[in-house]
């Protein structure tokens, strides 16, 4: 059994530290936004976790392509690890979004396009997990998951474009500003700092979790091969 690599332990430490620093920066360093007040600070973690959630989907789709071409189990493990973790990160992002929305828009949820898309994306990955549980043969399961991950990932930009075309009340902080959107704000330089740091901190955290989950998957796969070998030898 492979021992836990030292680099991973280092990464554990690094991600814990970075997330703590990010939290510190958010609470103590970043200025309080004039119009929205303290609740705006949710933004830093909200965007960071959403970004990481999307990153995970990219990883799963790429892993899917590699699995189909190379037929190596490790790509399947990477794929399912990425989706599992992203599922949680994205859910956190949605919840944080709600927390931010409540005082600003006066509602926990609205069926505006961007939020609806977020819900859809989350559902695609829940569907991915359901697909996996519905297929018993491991090779087939890996293949189907890879295919679905690719499809899921491609449908996301298309869904996203349909948002941009519809008027949205969701703040378009990065990119064009629309008169119809409420809750947009300008980011001052200290805010930008905290924002980017949070982004990086959560990316590191994601990488750390991903590595752990991949290791878990590989161990599981090793156990499975041993079991099959035992059967073959007629034990």
């Amino acid at each position: 059994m492979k021992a836990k690599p030292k680099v991973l332990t280092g990464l554990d430490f690094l991600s814990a530290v970075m997330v703590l620093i990010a939290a510190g920066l958010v609470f103590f360093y970043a200025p309080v936004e004039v119009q929205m007040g303290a609740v705006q600070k949710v933004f830093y973690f909200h965007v960071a976790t959403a970004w990481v959630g999307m990153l995970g989907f990219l990883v799963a789709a790429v892993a899917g392509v590699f699995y189909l071409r190379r037929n190596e189990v490790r790509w399947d493990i990477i794929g399912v690890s990425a989706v599992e973790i992203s599922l949680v990160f994205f859910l956190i992002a949605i919840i944080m979004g709600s927390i931010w929305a409540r005082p600003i828009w006066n509602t926990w949820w609205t069926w505006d396009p961007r939020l609806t898309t977020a819900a859809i994306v989350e559902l695609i990955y829940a569907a991915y997990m359901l697909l996996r549980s519905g297929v018993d043969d491991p090779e087939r399961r890996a293949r189907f998951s890879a295919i679905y991950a690719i499809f899921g990932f491609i449908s996301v930009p298309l869904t996203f474009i349909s948002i941009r075309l519809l008027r949205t009340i969701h703040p378009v902080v990065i990119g064009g500003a629309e008169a119809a959107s409420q809750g947009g704000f300008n980011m001052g330089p200290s805010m930008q700092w905290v924002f980017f740091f949070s982004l990086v901190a959560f990316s590191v955290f994601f990488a750390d979790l991903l590595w752990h989950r991949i290791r878990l998957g590989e161990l599981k796969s090793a156990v499975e091969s041993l079991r099959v070998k035992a059967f073959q030898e007629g034990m």
Partner: protein
Amino acid sequence: MRSYLRAVGAVIWKDFRAEWRNRENLSAMLVFALLVILIFNFALELDLQARASLSAGVLWTTFIFAGTIGLNRSLAVEKDRGCLDGLLLAPVDRSVIFFGKAIGNLAFMLLVEAIVLPVFNFLYGLNVFQPGFLGVVVLGSIGYAAVGTLLSTMVVQARTRDILLPILLFPLTLPVVIAAVKASQGFFQNLPLGEFSVWINLLVAYDLIFIAVAFMVFDYVLED
């Protein structure tokens, strides 16, 4: 090339011939579609004002649900008696199976839609016979049938096949539904084409992208 087209034609011919025998699939789709419209009628209590904006949504929801039934059945037939293996044994490219099944599924969907639309017109007085709108119906159905065929080919090999197809299919085809509904609304409300042509573009883009991806990936669905 000719043998390729002949093979695709053969798959389509086979499905039509088999369906024509007892028309089980078509009647199931049709009855289901009409029931859905009926349920929506009561659930939403559509009044004249609301109709114009809601009707596009009701229509497309109906098509989506009826489509799922057709898709499931179409691939279940191949699983029965191991027919899928028969197709796989043939010296034809795997994509023949994809195009043959997808076109067959599309044809069934269009057939059901062709019957449902006049009914809709009769019940709600909406002008469904505009060529632009019919074009949207075709475009939306194409995208749905393409992705649906690929997914149902996958799903029919899974254990939880009955519930899995809608769960996998609906989130992926949301862009189609959104675009189709918006474009349909544009036609129903007689808006100038320029205002909503973007949705038609989106439909075309979706169709092209997903047909291409499905084609590239289909071999892997059937590999064993």
